[in-house]
């Protein structure tokens, strides 16, 4: 008699319990996706002897392609915020890469800098696999003047953010260089940020 009266409630409780257990099990088994760390063997060495390529005139980059890790991304200009910190494309558009526009453009003499998110709250972002690049991999940048500058990777390394190698990234370079920058290392839940930056060093070869 009791069972009949309470049957709907019993079923509801059983369903709630089953669903709860299922969600807990799936939560425990879902490992957070963490970006790959650069291989120590690919640490940057002295830039390769650059081929005798004449520098290109200034032109905004519009697209970047990194075939080795399947990146094909639109590029938008970025600079720095009011506090002087490098801007990155908006988090709600994690597939975009940003070009540090106060610096040189890809193909000009000097280091051009492209920055992109490693991930967003919804999953991996445009430069998630940057740490997987190896010396000799290719990066192609399409420019607004329809030209394509091809770069070859010289090295990849991770640096703590408080020891960011500004000189190597933004400093002078007698040839056309490219720097790809994203986050890496451990994600610090308290600060809501990664502790490292991953930097890819490349030199124009075509």
């Amino acid at each position, binding site marked *: 008699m009791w069972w009949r009266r309470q049957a709907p409630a019993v079923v509801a409780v059983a369903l709630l319990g089953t669903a709860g*257990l299922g969600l*807990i099990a799936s939560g425990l088994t879902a490992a957070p996706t963490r970006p790959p760390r650069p291989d120590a063997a690919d640490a940057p060495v002295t830039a390769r002897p650059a081929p005798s390529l004449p520098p290109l005139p200034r032109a905004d980059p519009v697209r970047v392609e990194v075939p080795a890790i399947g990146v094909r991304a639109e590029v938008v200009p970025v600079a720095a915020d009011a506090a002087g910190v490098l801007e990155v494309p908006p988090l709600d558009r994690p597939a975009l890469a940003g070009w540090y526009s106060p610096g040189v453009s890809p193909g000009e003499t000097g280091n051009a800098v492209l920055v992109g998110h490693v991930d967003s709250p919804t999953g991996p972002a445009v430069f998630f696999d940057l740490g997987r690049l190896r010396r000799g991999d290719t990066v192609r940048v399409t420019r607004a003047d329809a030209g394509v500058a091809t770069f070859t990777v010289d090295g990849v390394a991770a640096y703590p953010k408080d020891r960011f190698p500004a000189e190597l990234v933004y400093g002078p370079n007698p040839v056309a260089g490219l720097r790809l920058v994203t986050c890496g290392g451990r994600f610090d839940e308290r600060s809501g940020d990664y502790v490292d930056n991953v930097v890819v060093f490349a030199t124009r070869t075509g």
Partner: protein
Amino acid sequence: MKAKTVLVSAAVGVGLGALLLPGAALAETIVSPATTPVGGTVVLTATTCNPKSGDAIFRVTGPNRDINVRSTTAAAGGGLSAELFTAGFTLGTYTVTATCGDGSAAGSATFTVTPIGGAPAGAGDGTDGTGSLAAGATLLGTALGGALILARRRRHPAGAAA
């Protein structure tokens, strides 16, 4: 033989000239460090300026600056120096051209004003199961609460009816 003597003499002459005119050969301006985060300070040094000839003038030109900075101290290694505070500078590369107090050119150098620190280019992958754990715990808690109420009703059917 005569040609050889002339060549040797010329080479010796060039070498002596280089030794005797170090000022002309080494006239230079140094900016240290060559890269600074915006708001940092760089030291400008004109290594060949003689302090006795008066202050050196450093002309700083770049994205949003065209200013003259007067030397304030004699540099430890020779020449004259000034400190330059880069707060408010637009990011980019600046050229420093120095002129000594006697009006002679003292060379030029560049420095780059960069963003501060690294790039905040990650937000943490939110798909790590935390949400599932929280939702699962809430559902399980609700189910346990419901089970307790049902158990009490079964033990005390009269009380439940009242």
